[in-house]
């Protein structure tokens, strides 16, 4: 037997889809070693991945206090494992329902002009500033955090402090360990204060909506859940979207002919965004870690044994030759692009519609308002942040 593959797979060269993804689907599941050294079973085929995202026999409760044998992603990471929170039904459905109300097509579309306004402002600042500049700093990170501020109802005057705390907490900025800890505590405290102020003066934001649900019926949402989910939206929705905006723009700029194709026909933006979501996963699938509470058979007859830690490989499913013709080709006109980048089933990304809207607005605004936008260094030398939840480019020098 060969040694297990190390996972996440390396993105070398940074613009090419990892080689490890070729031929991976010969077996329905492969054993991988995580950064912590622990092993997990990775499911590789589209049909299995899609079915298992919706399978109750895989639990998302990966707290080691309750399941001591569950694999760890990295040695010190407990991000998704709060012992007071149950990520499985029925608790999960109850809370998720309160959150997803904010992400109906109508409410997401109401945020489109907000996102457009933020894009216009950020691009105007880019034009007024120096060249080259880092697209992450100047655009990709500020956009989603401002949209989330609006969604949560963070007042304008708190925006900078809020972003500092969030960036420190999520290690967006590299800070000493003690300062990160201070940011973590500061953020938890800030969310408490935000909740208090919304309780006094409710608005039409998500936090006010959650408080209303809690105060009207105590059983619906505990105070701890209220803060946990608010913080969870930041964890789930900020760096993911920022990283995807940066990475997908960088890939487009690396393929100048695609930029010109889109500039000649803006109706291509949505399908281009989907294709970049499919191929350019800005993160690995470590966040899908689950635990088998029963034996589960796969498409090739292999059985996932009860007690196994399981990863559902979105990136491998997205390259499945059975589902996507010429999967390794970047085709911005691809139709029937039902990729797994937002998961599937009950836990399907709550913010997917919001992320799509932001990506569409961002892509068009950048290519329209900065028609000569280009990478200031060769694309295959862009540095990637590897081994984590998000693996986009750590810096994207651009000029125009």
């Amino acid at each position, binding site marked *: 037997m060969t040694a297990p593959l190390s996972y996440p797979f390396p993105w070398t060269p940074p613009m090419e889809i990892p080689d490890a993804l070729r031929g991976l689907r010969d077996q329905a599941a492969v054993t991988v070693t995580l950064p912590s050294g622990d092993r997990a079973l990775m499911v590789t085929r589209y049909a299995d991945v899609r079915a298992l995202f919706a399978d109750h026999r895989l639990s998302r409760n990966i707290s080691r206090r309750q399941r001591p044998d569950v694999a760890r992603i990295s040695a010190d990471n407990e991000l998704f494992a709060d012992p007071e929170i149950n990520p499985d039904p029925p608790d999960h459905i109850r809370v998720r329902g309160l959150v997803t109300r904010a992400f109906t097509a109508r409410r997401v579309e109401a945020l489109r002009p907000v996102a457009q306004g933020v894009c216009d402002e950020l691009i105007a600042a880019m034009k007024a500033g120096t060249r080259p500049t880092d697209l992450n700093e100047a655009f990709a990170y500020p956009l989603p955090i401002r949209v989330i501020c609006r969604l949560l109802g963070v007042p304008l005057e708190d925006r900078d402090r809020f972003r500092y705390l969030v960036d420190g907490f999520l290690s967006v900025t590299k800070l000493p360990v003690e300062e990160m800890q201070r940011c973590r505590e500061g953020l938890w405290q800030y969310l408490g204060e935000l909740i208090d102020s919304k309780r006094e003066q409710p608005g039409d934001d998500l936090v006010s909506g959650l408080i209303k649900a809690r105060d009207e019926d105590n059983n619906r949402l505990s105070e701890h859940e209220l803060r946990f989910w608010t913080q969870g939206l930041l964890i789930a929705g900020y760096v993911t979207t920022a990283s995807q905006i940066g990475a997908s723009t960088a890939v487009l700029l690396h393929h100048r002919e695609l930029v010109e194709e889109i500039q000649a026909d803006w109706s291509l933006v949505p399908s281009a965004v989907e294709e970049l979501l499919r191929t350019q996963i800005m993160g690995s699938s470590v966040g899908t870690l689950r635990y088998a509470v029963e034996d589960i058979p796969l498409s090739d007859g292999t059985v996932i044994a009860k007690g196994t830690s399981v990863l559902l490989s979105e990136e491998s499913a997205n390259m499945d030759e059975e589902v996507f013709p010429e999967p390794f080709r970047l085709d911005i006109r691809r139709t029937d692009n*039902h990729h797994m980048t937002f998961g599937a089933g009950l836990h399907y990304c709550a913010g997917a519609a919001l992320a799509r809207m932001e990506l569409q607005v961002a892509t068009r605004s950048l290519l329209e308002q900065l028609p000569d936008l280009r990478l200031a260094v060769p694309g295959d030398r862009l540095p990637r942040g590897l081994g984590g939840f998000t693996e986009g480019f750590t810096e994207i020098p651009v000029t125009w």
Partner: protein
Amino acid sequence: MRVTADRDTCTVSSLCVYRAPEVFDQDEDGHVVVLRPDPPEHLHPAVRDAARSCPTRSIRITEEE
């Protein structure tokens, strides 16, 4: 073509509304509502696409002869 949708399994992805807004809508909580259970022919491709994309397979289509 007849279209039905299961609100109990709907996970509020909003995908169907984006793919076929003439046929699908959402209630206040975001759960799917079928506006046109018998959509006209020209909407059929969009409806099939919506059904295929539904993350919880909550949309059912019955094709008539």
